[in-house]
């Protein structure tokens, strides 16, 4: 695809702009900003990737992965500001998920340790982990706020903090994972996944594209469960002190 043909695709930006103006939706400014940002960000990534692929140095690969982790942390931490040390808990979770998935993929020879594989797969894994982290933190802080009485009831009956948050943790982990599982159930029936579609458009064998997509799906399932569970078990202790008292100021939901 050339830049000229891409320019034609801006028609698909013009349509929402016109509709927004006509229907008084007030979305023109955001649409323009989103369009410009996506063009700049993706083009920059494209050129950076080209440089990394050409350089054949693994340092650049891990630098890219590090950058992804920093950006994902920056984005997700806003949802968990009430949790002490949330930044490092997120960094730890993303690194754990990345190391685990790449170790399995590279260790078992499923994918080669080259930029072409490591960077896109890491992007999907860390990106998914970020979304899951945000979903989990949103739900968990809301659950803790909502079920304050239940938490204190268990504590007052002689329960430990872990026992007191067990139900809230379980509900939050389930709630954040369900969208991943549900979307996997209908995948291929309702929509073709983006990565697979991209490969097919680029001329890859559809069966090969499906095999890679399945690999990604399984990876994302692991990512989902590990992210929520790890964040949950890292986060809940910060809501209590050493006297097993619920710290009220820590459970106010961010709004």
């Amino acid at each position, binding site marked *: 695809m050339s830049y000229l043909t891409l320019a034609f695709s801006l028609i698909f930006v013009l349509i929402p702009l016109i509709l927004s103006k006509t229907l008084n939706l007030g979305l023109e400014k955001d649409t323009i900003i989103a369009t410009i940002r996506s063009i700049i960000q993706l083009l920059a990534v494209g050129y950076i990737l080209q440089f990394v692929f050409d350089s054949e140095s693994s340092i650049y690969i891990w630098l890219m992965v590090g950058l992804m982790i920093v950006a994902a942390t920056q984005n997700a931490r806003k949802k968990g500001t009430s949790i002490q040390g949330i930044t490092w808990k997120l960094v730890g979770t993303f690194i754990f998920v990345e190391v685990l998935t790449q170790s399995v993929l590279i260790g078992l020879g499923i994918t080669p340790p080259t930029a072409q594989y490591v960077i896109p797969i890491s992007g999907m894994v860390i990106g998914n982990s970020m979304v899951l982290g945000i979903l989990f933190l949103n739900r968990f802080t809301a659950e803790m706020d909502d079920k304050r*009485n239940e938490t*204190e009831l268990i504590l*007052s*009956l002689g329960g430990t903090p872990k026992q007191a948050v067990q*139900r809230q943790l379980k509900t939050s982990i389930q709630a954040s994972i369900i969208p991943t599982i549900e979307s996997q159930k209908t995948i291929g029936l309702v929509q073709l996944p983006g990565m697979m579609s991209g490969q097919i458009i680029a001329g890859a064998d559809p069966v090969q594209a499906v095999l890679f997509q399945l690999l990604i799906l399984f990876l994302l399932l692991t990512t989902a469960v590990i992210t929520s569970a790890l964040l949950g078990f890292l986060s809940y202790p910060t809501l209590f002190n050493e*006297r097993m*008292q619920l710290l009220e100021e820590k459970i106010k939901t961010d709004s």
Partner: protein
Amino acid sequence: MEPKQAIRFDHVDYTIDDTKILKDINHGFNQGEITTLVGPSGAGKTTLIRLCNGLISPTKGRIYIHDQPIDEYNPVDLRKKVGMVMQGVTMLKGTVRENLAIPLKLQDKTLTDEEASRLLDMVGLPASFLDKNSNSLSGGQKQRISIARSLVNRPSVLLLDEITSSLDTVSQQEVESLIKRINEEYKTTIVWITHNLRQALNIGDYSWVMMDGEVIETGKSEFLNQPNDERVKAFVRSEFQ
């Protein structure tokens, strides 16, 4: 001889965000007796009993439970020894049996049907209630279950926060006689927050009147008929009217 105190406060303050909720509390709850805490809303009564159960800690001063500083207790052991029934009954999803079993489940133990039935009997409910969904119960029934649940740990002190405020008169009297019975049979020390002065007079051996975070007047509950402090007089007058 001075009666033995189950809980003793030694110049206790509790402050949140520069606001003193409790100021220099320096009294105690007599062992094996029923003490009622009365006073207007915002007087610090709930804060006081949350301190006793270890859900919060004093900002200043010390609390002694059976003559041992509260901070020397393991929080879990403390909360088993000093039970609490909170204001506004909280039931977990599930059956009455599951709710009654919570305190033992927390210790990886199971509640036998026999024990569960005995608890229900104690609070005046038939064993057939065990399999009822806890959310289908009336306010009074839930309150009784929550009292029964707090007894599973066999606490030596039981803290009750406005447990009859949402009940009708008949249910209120039933809960009152239940608490009296628990106090007499098990020698459990009872600390009962109530808005109801009649209740304080009827069942409290002792009463504390609290206002603005301070204990204004204490003594055998009869003093509520003829208090000394002018503020308490005004409060009692307004409550009895």
